[in-house]
């Protein structure tokens, strides 16, 4: 389907499928159109072209309430004039369910999310994390065909976000629900997603499992966007029959890196990508690329060396075998089988 707002094309002819019970992540930088996809599926927007099917039936002409989907908004969107109980019961009441049936359902959802003691409170008397749970509860209690999550954890602090992430994964396993989850946080995407759809500027860049997205990025955008710290990228022109990558003023030994010279690439513009954890500090101080340590970023569990190599900034994870200080000269090696090559922005195999 496609979606345009006036002259702006938000989604350009995208297509993907989510299996029953699958946890699917829409990942991309802000403004890539990922939230628009959710809104289209929910019926809050109409597609400019194309169709949306749920259980093999077209839904794109149905009103939101006829689609049987639940939406969890980034800023919760609880009904401020209702208690938590009424917030959860609202959708069930609209369906004409009797109070005798609603009570147990609401209590069950509240028990699952551990918000039973909050049922009589109003949203403004709740903390951010509690509001988030209520928003989740409002979705769960309906047992919809699809859960749509629009960056539900982005307003929480880091600790709470991490624990909610785990809880969401657990919840998904227990409910076996079909979930479509939008985020720009790759850690969230990689831990939660069974399937990840990476988007950029309204087009799908790659669809795959977390490991595929990470280890075999389909293009430069995915390689750059997924992974923290970012993948090191060396862009330049292939020279000397494939032996050398001329990167600004630096001549990088391409043949040495790949353990063979890709002669077919001679004269082409190539980008070589190496993830920080795929670099190793060379014992002899030489390595494939060498430079001076500019900064050491110690995250506790990991330590990253920021190295200045002739004007190229390289980040490498340090195996902690040796101790370094800023100003030390070191050389770095890379695993040849873990090097990524991008020709015209697209991944190629060496």
């Amino acid at each position: 389907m496609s979606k345009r707002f006036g002259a702006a094309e938000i989604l350009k002819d995208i297509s993907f499928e989510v299996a029953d019970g699958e946890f699917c992540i829409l990942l991309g930088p802000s403004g890539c159109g990922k939230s628009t996809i959710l809104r289209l599926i929910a019926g809050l927007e109409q597609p400019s072209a194309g169709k949306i099917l749920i259980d093999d039936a077209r839904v794109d002409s149905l009103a939101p309430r006829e689609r049987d989907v639940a939406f969890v908004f980034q800023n919760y969107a609880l009904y401020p004039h209702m208690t938590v109980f009424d917030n959860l019961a609202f959708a069930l009441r609209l369906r004409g369910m009797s109070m005798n049936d609603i009570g147990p359902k609401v209590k069950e959802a509240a028990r699952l999310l551990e918000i039973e003691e909050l049922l009589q409170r109003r949203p403004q008397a709740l903390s951010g994390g509690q509001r988030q749970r209520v928003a989740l509860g409002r979705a769960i209690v309906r047992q919809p065909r699809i859960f749509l999550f629009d960056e539900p954890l982005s307003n929480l602090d880091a600790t709470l976000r991490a624990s909610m992430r785990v809880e969401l994964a657990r919840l998904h396993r227990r409910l076996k629900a079909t979930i479509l989850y939008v985020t720009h946080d790759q850690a969230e995407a990689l831990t939660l997603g069974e399937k990840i759809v990476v988007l950029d500027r309204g087009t799908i860049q790659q669809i795959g499992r977390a490991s595929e997205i990470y280890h075999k990025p389909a293009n430069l955008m995915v390689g750059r966007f997924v992974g923290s710290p970012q993948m090191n990228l060396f862009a330049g022109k292939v020279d000397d029959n494939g032996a050398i990558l001329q990167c600004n003023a630096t001549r990088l030994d391409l043949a040495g890196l790949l353990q063979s010279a890709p002669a077919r690439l001679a004269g082409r513009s190539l980008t070589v990508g190496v993830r920080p954890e795929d670099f190793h500090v060379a014992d002899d101080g030489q390595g494939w690329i060498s430079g001076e340590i500019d900064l050491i970023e110690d995250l506790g569990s990991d330590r990253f060396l920021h190295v200045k190599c002739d004007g190229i900034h390289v980040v490498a994870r340090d195996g902690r075998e040796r101790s370094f200080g800023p100003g030390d000269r070191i050389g770095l090696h890379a695993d040849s089988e873990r090097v990524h090559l991008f020709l015209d922005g697209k991944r190629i195999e060496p």
Partner: protein
Amino acid sequence: MKRSAALVLFSVGIALYCLVPFLWLVLTSLKSSAELTAIPPKLMPSFHLGFYRSALQNYGLLHYVGNSAIVAGATALITVVLGSLAAYAIARFKLKWTNFYLLLLLVVSMFPQIAIAGPVWIILDRLQWLNTYQGLVAAYIALSLPLATWILTTFFREVPGEIEEAALIDGCSRLQALYKVVLPLAAPGILTAGLLVFIHAWNEFFFALIIMTDPTVQTLPVGIALFPGEYTMPWGEIAAASTIATIPLVLLTLIFQRGIVRGLSAGAVKG
């Protein structure tokens, strides 16, 4: 300490400045005829209720109160219903001319009444609506709808769109979302708009004077203004009637005070 004392004094001064004429009116209404004309004037009345009795019995005050209640009540109700629907549409739907339209509303609400009095009178005359409740109510609605719509629009804009979208997904139709979620949240604004319209219609004099020439349908301001006879100037009865005319407004404002304060300050501070 000194500053706050000065502030209190200043506030009391302002309040007195505003209230003294009204206080004088109330005191006058409680005097006897002799006290009213005494020279030098007496400040404190003897709390005589004669003027109230006279206003009610000889001048048919309750009849005017009834007319005013019907006209102001109907005006406020219809204006708020129409204004809410218009404001909801302006606030929610992305229409091309929204801002221009809002500006136009503001301009229209600034028209001096005298400029439209002639046409309004002619229209009502053709409709044979002169000296009818619907005639005056229609004129009042036309006068207050632009400003009410403007006020209500700012309130509807304050209700986050996502809350309404949540309601739509939860199973509401557009109208259900409006009255189950949006209206309760915009209640302070609706109350404020309704009260402002009611007060305006209750106090309005000029249109009421030219549209309602028949005493059986006249509203309070016109009725009271026509108390003086050819040879009499019943100050006491006028004061008593004016006091009675003020009571409903004071009561309404006190009852809904909190809502109005919330309403008038909305947009200035995010709740």
